[in-house]
């Protein structure tokens, strides 16, 4: 087996995207669980648990994209053109999720906090879902012609199998986030998160069926 530059970068890009899924996985999971508690203080604690790390985690995605661009420009070109709408949607979800973390606590009104809480949670779930759908499409195979051009449509990416992988990813991240939350909290919220962790383990192991 030759261990050339292509192979090394193939592994490196894999490591970067895997690292992203592991790291951003738990803070997207915390986001997905965010609306399950109605208490303002518990929501604050959940945000605080990922507060110092979530943006660092997202850098893995940026680095992965950059590495793909530098090492495999043809793959990058095909993926970013073919998945254009999906990636724009992912970007919108990530933007609203990020600003929600910062804006939420700036005003005490219920409607204000509720709006940003929904932004944070929906943004997190949508991000996880889209990442999973992308993964599902890559596993299933996407139509690409001889010139390396994507031949499908955005709606064509939402086939049942990729959608199931998307739901599984949301479930997996929820489990990951809940376990992270169990590690970071104590008291009543800790017990709640422990229950959610159990439920999301059941959810994520039943989702593929």
């Amino acid at each position, binding site marked *: 087996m030759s261990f050339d530059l292509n192979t090394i970068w193939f592994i490196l890009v894999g490591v970067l995207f895997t690292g992203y899924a592991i790291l951003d996985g738990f803070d997207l999971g915390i986001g997905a669980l965010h609306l399950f508690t109605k208490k303002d203080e518990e929501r604050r604690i959940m945000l605080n648990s990922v507060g110092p790390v979530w943006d660092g985690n997202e850098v893995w995605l940026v680095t992965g994209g950059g590495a793909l661009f530098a090492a495999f420009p043809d793959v990058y070109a095909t993926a970013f*053109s073919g998945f254009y709408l999906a990636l724009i949607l992912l970007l919108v979800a990530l933007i609203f999720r990020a*600003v929600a973390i910062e804006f939420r606590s700036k*005003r005490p009104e219920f409607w204000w906090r509720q709006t940003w809480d929904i932004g944070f949670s929906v943004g997190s779930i949508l991000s996880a879902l889209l990442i999973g759908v992308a993964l599902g499409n890559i596993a299933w195979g996407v139509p690409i012609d001889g010139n390396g051009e994507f031949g499908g449509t955005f709606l064509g990416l939402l086939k049942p199998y990729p959608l199931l992988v998307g739901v599984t990813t949301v479930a997996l991240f929820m489990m990951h986030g809940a376990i992270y939350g169990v590690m970071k909290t104590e008291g009543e919220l800790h017990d709640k998160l422990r229950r959610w962790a159990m439920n999301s383990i059941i959810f994520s192991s039943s989702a593929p069926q």
Partner: protein
Amino acid sequence: MVAIGTLLILIAALGAFFSWRKVLHQKRWLLWILVFSVLGPEIANQFGWFAAEVGRQPWLVYGLMRTPEGLSAVVKANTVLTSLILFTFIYFLLFAVFIYLLNDKSSMAHMTTV
């Protein structure tokens, strides 16, 4: 971008000097400049992007690939336009929230100090 950055450093230095002399609150003209200097970093940020994106033309990758060669065959012009309009809308929306919060914060600071 550099000009705005330098100007902001000067404004901040002047503000720090007046603050040290404890006369900052009497210099209404400087306080007004400070209010509008909030826009400085935002403008510098956007101008920086304009300079980078316009300045590299006609190259996509300098010396290697021209912009027309990087044209995507499967992304239609109106799709790009839609995403551009979408992000412009998001930028303005978030900018409005930012200004609202900033105004809110400074009126609260005013109440606590006076």
